């Protein structure tokens, strides 16, 4: 069986069209389709699976899939973190063009000068969805001291208050300007890539598909590999990046699925922010409260941002707080109040085909089947890691997942750690729950140290208002 990993999201349409033109029509795979397992028309020797783009190079590198199609940026990200991985680029596909741009706010450039003079600046904060590329960029630039803030998304929201530099994926540099940032250097200008695993190419006959894939209709374009600039200034100025003292309180509220519940919790507390509704938002809503600044960021990124001191409090899920705390147990962030909304259980699920009703039975069965390592897939890699240790899984692999996770079991992992409200999604994907990990609801999280005086009082007042909203 040959295996091909295809992307979800915006690339579905052009990928489906290119495959069809190459005689590899598959269904149901097009804009808007939700199926995660597909088949090729007239071919039962090829299995197709839909992943979030970010997961595709990882799956190909692991050897779970022979081929994959995804944006070049995610391949470069994997190869930046693991330069010796097993992925090779077969060809650029021409569509899905994107750029990786290093950008900064005008006030940062005014303070630090042009990028070429940043080598000696100590304490630079770099934010990106691409932490591996950001790390390589920082090293190549010979930044004297820096921190990489890895975020799930909305990296453009962080400069200038919460980051000095952002590395962003955009379709065009003008997108950077639209965020109020200045593009400084383009690190990558590329399209979607067709990739393959080196081991598969070296040791298996993939000829039945490889010719068709290479024949996919796509314009001939150069691959456009990552181009990191070099530091051109060796003398260090050893200057601090910024003084970041502030007087006001900063609150982070979420976008995405959690927005509706957060809006309701705010309303119950008598808080309405101009620019933050049930379904729509602006990045920096107006709080209408003296000394309170509000920003919209991803809920996954909030615990770290609060720990860093960029925000004093935030509204996020307990799942994301615990995932952060399992990675950084001493992190100065804690749950201040359970808002009791957006409730779901975090559970361990296995395939319905595993003859077991408990995790212990499942482990025994897999061992009997000769499994040497148990693969645990999850959007919460640190919770999964903690779970594996706590439950004595023995030798295990945590496979970080960025979405479309239900279809990982059984082909690509034995266990899935996932949030489930009613269990219907598990059932639809032929999964069954074998362990309950914990219950998650949305909650107010605060920094446990470093907030004093009037800021502390305002934080406490806000938490009290949320509590009163609950009681009401």
């Amino acid at each position, binding site marked *: 069986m040959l295996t091909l990993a295809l992307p979800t999201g915006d690339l579905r349409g052009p990928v489906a069209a290119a495959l069809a033109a190459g005689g590899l029509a598959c269904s149901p795979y097009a804009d808007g389709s939700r199926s995660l397992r597909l088949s090729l028309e007239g071919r039962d020797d090829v299995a197709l699976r839909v992943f979030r783009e970010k997961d595709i190079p990882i799956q190909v590198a692991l050897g779970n899939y022979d081929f994959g199609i995804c944006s070049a940026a995610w391949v470069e990200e994997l190869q930046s973190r693991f330069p010796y991985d097993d992925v090779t680029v077969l060809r650029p596909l021409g569509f899905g063009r994107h750029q990786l741009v290093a950008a900064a706010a005008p006030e940062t450039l005014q303070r630090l000068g042009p990028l070429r003079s940043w080598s000696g600046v100590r304490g630079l*904060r770099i934010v990106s969805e691409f932490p591996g590329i950001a*790390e390589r960029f920082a090293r190549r630039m010979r930044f004297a001291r820096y*921190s990489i803030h890895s975020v799930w998304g909305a990296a453009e929201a962080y400069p200038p208050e919460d980051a000095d530099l952002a590395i962003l994926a955009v379709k065009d540099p003008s997108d950077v300007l639209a965020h109020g940032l200045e593009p400084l250097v383009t690190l990558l200008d590329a399209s979607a890539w067709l990739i393959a695993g080196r081991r598969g190419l070296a040791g298996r006959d993939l000829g039945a598909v490889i010719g068709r894939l290479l024949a996919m209709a796509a314009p001939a374009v150069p691959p456009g590999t990552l181009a990191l600039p*070099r530091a051109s200034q060796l003398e*260090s100025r050893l200057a601090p990046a910024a003084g970041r003292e502030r007087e006001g309180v900063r609150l982070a509220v979420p976008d995405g699925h959690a927005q509706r519940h957060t809006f309701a919790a705010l309303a119950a507390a008598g808080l309405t922010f101009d620019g933050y509704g049930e379904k729509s938002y602006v990045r920096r809503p107006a709080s209408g409260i003296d000394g309170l600044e509000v920003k919209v960021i991803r809920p996954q990124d909030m615990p770290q941002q609060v720990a860093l001191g960029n925000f004093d409090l935030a509204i996020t899920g307990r799942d994301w707080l615990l995932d952060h705390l399992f990675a*950084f147990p001493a992190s100065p962030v804690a749950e201040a109040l359970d808002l009791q909304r957006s409730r779901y259980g975090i559970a361990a699920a296995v395939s319905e085909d595993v003859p077991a009703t408990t995790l212990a039975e499942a482990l025994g069965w897999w061992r009997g089947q000769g499994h040497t390592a148990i693969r645990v897939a999850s959007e919460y890699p640190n919770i999964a890691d903690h779970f594996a240790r706590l439950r004595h899984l023995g030798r295990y692999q945590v496979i970080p997942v960025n979405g479309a996770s239900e279809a990982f079991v059984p082909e690509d992992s034995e266990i899935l750690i996932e949030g489930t409200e009613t269990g219907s999604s598990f059932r639809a994907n032929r999964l069954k729950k074998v362990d309950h990990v914990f219950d998650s609801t949305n909650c107010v999280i605060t920094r446990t140290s470093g907030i004093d005086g009037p800021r502390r009082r305002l934080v406490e007042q806000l938490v009290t208002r949320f509590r009163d909203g609950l009681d009401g």
Partner: protein
Amino acid sequence: MTAAVELLRGRGMRDLLPEDMTRFRRIERAFRDELLGWGYQEVRTPTIEWLHLFTSAGTLSPHLLDRVYSFLDWDGWSGERVVLRPDTTIPAARVYAEHFTDEPAKLFYVQNIFRFAQGDEPRELWQCGAEVYGHTWPAGDIELMAAGRRVLQRLGLGDVRVRLSHTGVLRALLARAGFAPDEQAERYDRILDGDLSVTQEILGRLPDVRAPLDLLFTVTGTDAGYLSNLRAVFAEAVPGMAPALDELDLVARALAATGCPFDISMTLARDFEYYTGPIFRFALSDGSDAGGGGRYDSLVHRTAGSAVPACGFGLAMEHVMARMPEIEPERGPVVLVQPAAVSAEAAGLALSVASELQAAGFCAELVGSRRHPACRWTLTVDPARGAARYVLHDVQSGGDLGAASMDLVLAALGRGQC
């Protein structure tokens, strides 16, 4: 059995087995004795350091920086990474800057470093290193060369040749050709890789240089006269070379005066980013490289902000271990002491006898172990038998000796026969 062990051991990780440890400790002892004799003090730095110590320009080269083991610590929510020590010189410079105020300060250490290597190549390496901080040119450099060479000689590695170089020579050439400092490092590495297109690139930028660049890239000098020749050839075209050639000349003549064999090559060391002055390597009689060092006058400033010149060297312990001649066991002959009966009194006597033998330089054990060299002697102790309280048996010859006192036993062991 072997396959199972390979599965359990991390890739690129090596166990040091008893024979390896005997060699390891022998090197460590020779190194410590030599360096203590020159007035150095021993330190040990932590296994985990901040990554930023190694990222500034002029610290770790990009080539090595791409192979460090870095990660976010359990309290690394700030996004600032830590690293498993990938180098010993930079942490030692930090130790100096944080704990020492005197000049000169002379430190040495024996510790491991971690660098990624492909396949089964070792990823954990051990180094013996020494550093001198303060304005010690040229005595510090010469002292380090002498100490390093003598350590290798103490270990029976024969005549050790010193290979000399100076980063300033090629830096001056590349700077004269208009390359920025980071470009200089990249071109330098390409020259070492034998990429002769760099020569053409330099000549393209310096049409007025008529001197043969091969003299720098492919010729190895065996006498200080080689430096005079370089000076004569390049004095006009690359005047920036002169200070480096003068420094190298001083070191070369000092070595010549002590009868130390040496050669001179301008393409000697990779990853030279933090070196600012003369570089030296130690070549063993088989031509292999046992380690080396050099002068790095900017590193302390880059690491900790205080401008203190320094120089140092390190020996690659695995390389030296593999080339050391056969070595004698660390302890004297092995005696297995066994009580004649299971009783508290007999066990107590056996214990005191073992202690007495150990104090006399023997290896005495109550529990026999299978190892090399095999146990030659057994000593049976029986407190109930006065005249034959001690019975010494020579496993090799089969002879026995009954004795009422340990003096007779020790005398027989000293003679090597019952």
